[in-house]
């Protein structure tokens, strides 16, 4: 107990052996940004190849590896760890806890990730190249017809699954056991609520993904036929198992983003969040519904009509709690004293673009028309509107919102606004035209396309390059803030901000809330 108030250890070992939630949170955030750049580089290769019809830059096989690796790295390497990092930083500070409940496991769950992704990236240099079956790695493309590197891919997925599960157990254990006295569940900030529910989703479905890749491993190496029709198995079974994981997974990605936006919009509206209780219930409903809608990803596999109808209606039902959330955010802004700092701009951008993505999602939910949209660029446009404009925009908002609290320095508002507007324009230029080429019949995951899609694809590529460049601006903004931003020591960086994290000193000391704070 003697050196209870020690600072961080010095040198590299600090980062390897740390059990401090802030250190681990920072490592998660930096790691996820590195993966964001890597996945972004893959996307740039894809868009460069699609700039013109015909084969220009890469072989079709390599193109498939790029689409696959882009999806895997972005979903599992960039978005998920970034929100885990945010959870590490913010949840203890929001509920008045001194640290995460299981700090050593926290260290382990982070340090599993880099080896896992290094292994995944190494598959690019192996014989036969990286996995090329798409991020959904449908069997038999990922089993019978997979390159030998698929075994490394499977091990990598196992590792990152273990990491996610440990991270989630940690978050649940923290929220359930370490809340400051008086911090009842219904007083928790919404970011904590959305992460609590997300963590339960992770614990429930990451093992299902592990099961799917284990079955792949057995099919590839041990002579089983889970997914091989010739051996009495069924490739459609893979799709069911995958999407039983995959659909909750998309809410795992978006729910923390909802939480972030629910923190930021009230701050810059200078009003309390409208409909707190309904936000909590809506989040829980979305989580529950996510388990009974998975087959809307596979309407075209030949399901009985009753099945198509069930999954269609269940999917549309999700629009209700999601609509409640969008309504609450808009109503929070209604008659608020709005100001438009960078975090608020990203949140409003999120709100508008995510709603567009939600509407295209509703279109895709309609089983009879999904037969046209299925596996087209319309789907690509849809999920980039909800993943990029949903998760990445809210993550950018979160960084600008809490960065002054973390490092005690203010970012440059003009540069932040520039980052937002370049991102916003680049994003829409990249993905809005994809709705049109998709509806006109351009399939996804192809390196070449029919001539009539040329103009829209060119726009799309230019937009993607602009969006990619904007992220270099983001990196510059963050580093410039940390190195030479204007120092600030105000506890409340934003005058309208509420919550325990704004009661600690700025920059946030290495240890916070060693004695639980009073909660009104």
């Amino acid at each position, binding site marked *: 107990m003697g050196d209870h108030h020690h600072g961080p250890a010095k040198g590299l070992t600090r980062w390897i052996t740390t059990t401090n939630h802030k250190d681990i949170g920072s490592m998660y955030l930096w790691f996820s940004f590195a993966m964001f750049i890597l996945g972004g580089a893959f996307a740039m290769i894809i868009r460069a190849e699609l700039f013109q019809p015909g084969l220009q830059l890469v072989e079709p096989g390599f193109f498939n590896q790029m689409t696959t690796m882009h999806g895997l790295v972005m979903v599992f390497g960039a978005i998920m760890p970034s929100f885990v990092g945010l959870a590490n930083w913010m949840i203890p500070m929001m509920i008045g806890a001194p640290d995460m409940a299981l700090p050593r496991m926290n260290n382990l769950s982070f340090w599993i990730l880099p080896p896992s992704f290094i292994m995944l990236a190494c598959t690019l240099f192996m014989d036969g190249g990286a996995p090329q079956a798409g991020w959904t790695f449908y069997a038999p493309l990922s089993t019978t017809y997979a390159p030998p590197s698929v075994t490394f891919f499977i091990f990598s997925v196992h590792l990152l699954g273990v990491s996610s599960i440990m991270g989630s*157990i940690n978050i649940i*254990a923290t929220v359930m056991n370490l809340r400051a006295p008086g911090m009842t569940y219904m007083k928790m900030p919404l970011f904590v609520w959305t992460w609590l529910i997300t963590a339960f989703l992770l*614990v429930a479905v*990451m*093992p299902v993904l*592990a099961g799917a890749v284990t079955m792949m491993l057995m099919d590839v190496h041990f002579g089983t036929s889970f997914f091989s029709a010739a*051996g009495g198995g069924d490739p459609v*079974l893979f799709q*069911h198992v995958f999407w039983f994981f995959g659909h909750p997974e998309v809410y795992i990605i978006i729910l923390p983003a909802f939480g972030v936006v629910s923190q930021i919009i009230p701050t810059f509206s200078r009003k309390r969040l409208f409909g707190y209780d309904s936000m909590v219930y809506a989040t829980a409903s979305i989580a529950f519904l996510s388990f009974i809608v998975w087959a809307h990803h596979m309407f075209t596999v030949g399901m009985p009509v009753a099945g198509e109808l069930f999954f269609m209606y269940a999917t549309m039902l999700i629009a209700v709690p999601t609509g409640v959330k969008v309504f609450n955010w808009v109503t929070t802004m209604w008659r608020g004293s709005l100001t438009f700092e960078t975090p608020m701009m990203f949140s409003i951008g999120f709100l508008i673009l995510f709603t567009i993505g939600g509407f295209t999602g509703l279109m895709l939910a309609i089983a009879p028309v999904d037969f046209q949209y299925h596996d087209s660029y319309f789907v690509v446009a849809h999920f980039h509107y909800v993943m990029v404009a949903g998760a990445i925009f809210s993550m950018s908002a979160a960084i600008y919102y809490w960065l002054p609290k973390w490092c005690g320095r203010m970012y440059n508002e003009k540069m932040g606004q520039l980052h937002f507007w370049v991102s916003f324009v680049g994003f829409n230029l990249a993905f809005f035209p994809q709705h049109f080429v998709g509806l006109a019949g351009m399939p996804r995951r192809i390196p070449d396309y029919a001539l009539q899609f040329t103009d829209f694809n060119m726009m799309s590529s230019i937009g993607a390059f602009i969006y990619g460049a904007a992220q270099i601006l983001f990196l510059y903004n963050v580093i410039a803030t940390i190195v030479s931003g204007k120092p600030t020591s105000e506890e409340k960086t934003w005058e309208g901000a509420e919550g325990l994290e704004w009661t600690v000193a700025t920059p946030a000391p290495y240890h916070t809330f060693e004695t639980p704070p009073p909660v009104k």
Partner: protein
Amino acid sequence: MLQLSKNPTIDTAVKLAGVTVAMFAFVFVVMVPLYNVLCDVLGINGKTSGEAYTAVEVKVDTGRTIKIQFIASNNAGMPWEFGATVPMMKVHPGAVNDVLFFAKNPMPSAMVAQAIPSISPTRAIEYFHKTECFCFNQQPLDGESSAQMPLQFIVDQDLPADIKTITLSYTLFDVTDMANSAVAKR
């Protein structure tokens, strides 16, 4: 509520680890069998019943002729010659039919094979009854030898009238290693 540890944090963590293990097991012991049962009941993925069918009061419906096509193929890496002696048969619903498949092992060493059946269209599955089939058992063959393999089947007289053709497909698997290890265990 169940208390697994005095430390509430450890208690939560252990329970959640239990949930993780249960969900992993759920994939194998619930999802896969449940999928197979559902496909069986709904007849939606071409799997045929592994049980021999015992005929009850057969009435041969000579008014209808059904075309039965046979497809035989080898799984990747299987060197045997494998096929039906006739590519196609015309049968009446209710009648007992026999057909022979042949297999030849061109390799110098003894091997064991297993045929896996599939039927198309899927709606015909429940009306196609095999009373005897080489696919019920494994087929061992010495090196450079061949065998005739019998199949006896009845097309149910209740077969929907719009089905005129049924395709029966077999894929032959090399199960020598599995068969040997099963022998070794004994």
